[in-house]
């Protein structure tokens, strides 16, 4: 059996409608493995309503911790830390250097330069990744508790687990809800996928962010297609987006109108694609089918 078809839903601009589209796709592919790779602010579970089956601690990168009593205030750590994570604090004996955990990158360079061994790298539990199941199949997701750095590692764990489950259970699709932006977590969410679907909105911010995201995915070399959400909000920008997509060889798979009905349904936690006759839901249905068709062709070639 070949590799499963992996489809990632991404957007440059936040709030364009990734999660709603990803959930619709999931509903259109019963039996697929679903992965919520927006590990910072995961929302898929609010629509899929999964049952948790197993939870696994995620430690992420370590955090440096300074023993103030051993610190001789030589300043070597302060000078070598490139992340501004070393600062001065008051201690009973006067002052000491200390590590600001929120800024600590976890690189360990301070421990390398400290002549007094006053700094140790400690494991910090950053959250958990979970294997759950929802009505139509397995669902992998995660949440962070703190230490919100280098979350691309967590995304790669989720991708790996989704692939393992797909391989073990013979599942043909993996649907990935990706994070917004163009950073490392987005790269981790789209690397190696059969198709990246970019959701955009017709706003000046939306088209700005779209251009940057398309450049990124084309740099990585991922097959891409696009969907315009709330297209009737601004027909001028919609046209500009359509032109941009055409010039850059990105197929437009559909446009969804600005829909209070869809908003209401999502607000009520419903995955709407199967039911509903309003044009937004119909558009979603058509788009989901086109995405699956395109991704299947991509896997074959």
């Amino acid at each position, binding site marked *: 059996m070949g590799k499963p078809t992996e489809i990632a839903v991404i957007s440059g601009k936040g709030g364009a409608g990734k999660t709603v589209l990803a959930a619709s796709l999931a509903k259109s592919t019963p039996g697929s493995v679903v992965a919520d790779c927006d590990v910072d*602010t995961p929302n898929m579970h609010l629509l899929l309503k999964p049952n948790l089956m197993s939870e696994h601690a995620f430690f992420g990168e370590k955090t440096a911790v300074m023993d103030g009593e051993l610190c001789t205030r030589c300043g070597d750590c302060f000078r070598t830390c490139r992340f501004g994570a070393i600062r001065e604090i008051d201690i009973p004996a006067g002052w000491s250097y200390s590590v600001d955990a929120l800024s600590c990158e976890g690189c360990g360079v301070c421990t*390398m330069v400290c002549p007094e061994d006053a700094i140790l790298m400690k494991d910090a539990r950053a959250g958990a990744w979970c294997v759950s199941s929802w009505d139509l199949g397995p669902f992998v997701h995660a949440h962070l508790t703190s230490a919100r750095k280098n979350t691309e590692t967590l995304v790669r764990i989720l991708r790996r687990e989704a692939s393992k489950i797909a391989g073990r259970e013979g599942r043909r699709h993996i649907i990935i809800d990706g994070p917004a*932006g163009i950073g490392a977590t987005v*790269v981790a969410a789209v690397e190696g996928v059969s198709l990246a679907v970019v959701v955009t909105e017709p706003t*000046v911010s939306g088209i700005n962010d779209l251009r940057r995201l398309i450049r990124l995915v084309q740099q990585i070399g991922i097959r891409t297609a696009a969907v315009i959400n709330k297209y009737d909000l*601004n027909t001028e920008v919609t046209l500009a987006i359509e032109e941009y997509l055409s010039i850059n060889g990105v197929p437009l798979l559909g446009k969804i109108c600005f829909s209070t009905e869809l908003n209401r349904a999502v607000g009520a936690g419903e995955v709407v694609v199967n039911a509903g006759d309003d044009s937004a839901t119909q558009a979603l249905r058509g788009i989901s089918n086109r995405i699956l068709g395109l991704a299947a062709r991509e896997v074959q070639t």
Partner: protein
Amino acid sequence: MSTSRIVIASGKGGSGKTTVATALVMTLMREMPEVQLVDCDVEGPDAALFLKPEIESSTPLTIDFPEIAASQCSGCGDCQSVCQFGGVSVVSGVAEHYSDLCHACGGCSLACHAGAITEKKKRIGVIESGRRENVVFHRGVLDVGRHMVTPIIRGLKSIARGDLPTILDSGPGTVSPVIATIKDCDYCILVTEPSPFGLYDLRIAVRLAGEIGVPTGIVINKDEAWSSNIEQYASEMDIPIILRIPFRREIASLCSRGIPLTEVASSWDEAFWDMYARVERTIWESRPRSPL
């Protein structure tokens, strides 16, 4: 004159951070001699689309990345052992560098005793500065394909003036770049939408603001019937709701064109000024701040 630093953040992307940040700046520019806007959403900086400043300078930001001289490499693997990110690996007896995973910490070059690793400055983005009338504007733009975001934010904060009332427009979510943006600010305005997604993400953002130790207030954008979920949460957490912007298609449509909210109706100027006055009161009632 106030030199407060007010950051606009949110858990949920697309809640309206830039809408609120730019509207606030445009209100303040009418009332104050000078005001500063720093766009820290370096992956997707959009504030200039609304403020429309004239960009006067554009400076590439470079950081040191390792460069491995294969001929000097002994294949000892010390670099690989110290790297926490998988950025360096010994393959067939020679160390190789993977810039996608590299965090540019300097660890591998420190660890190398063979002198095989030097450092070379590489561009990760650009810091731009400009003006619109009495608004000083700075933004950072990440180069597409680069992933080191926090150094750009720190660079932005180091060039921002410390003598002006400052509004910072953060990126979405609660990851490192957002932490770097919110740190050392005097107040964090959290913009939310009333959907279940909005509330879920708001909780995460509130927790982060609490960890950083900055006072917060909530702005409900796209406010409508089901906002009671946000109201209930805000009440439980004792966080004030400092502004409400209704869900109106007309507002969405104007935003889509890059028209700031305060140009829609003068009543928005008043609403933002009242919000600002409330924020300032809270800041002055709170603890003293550390340097930018």
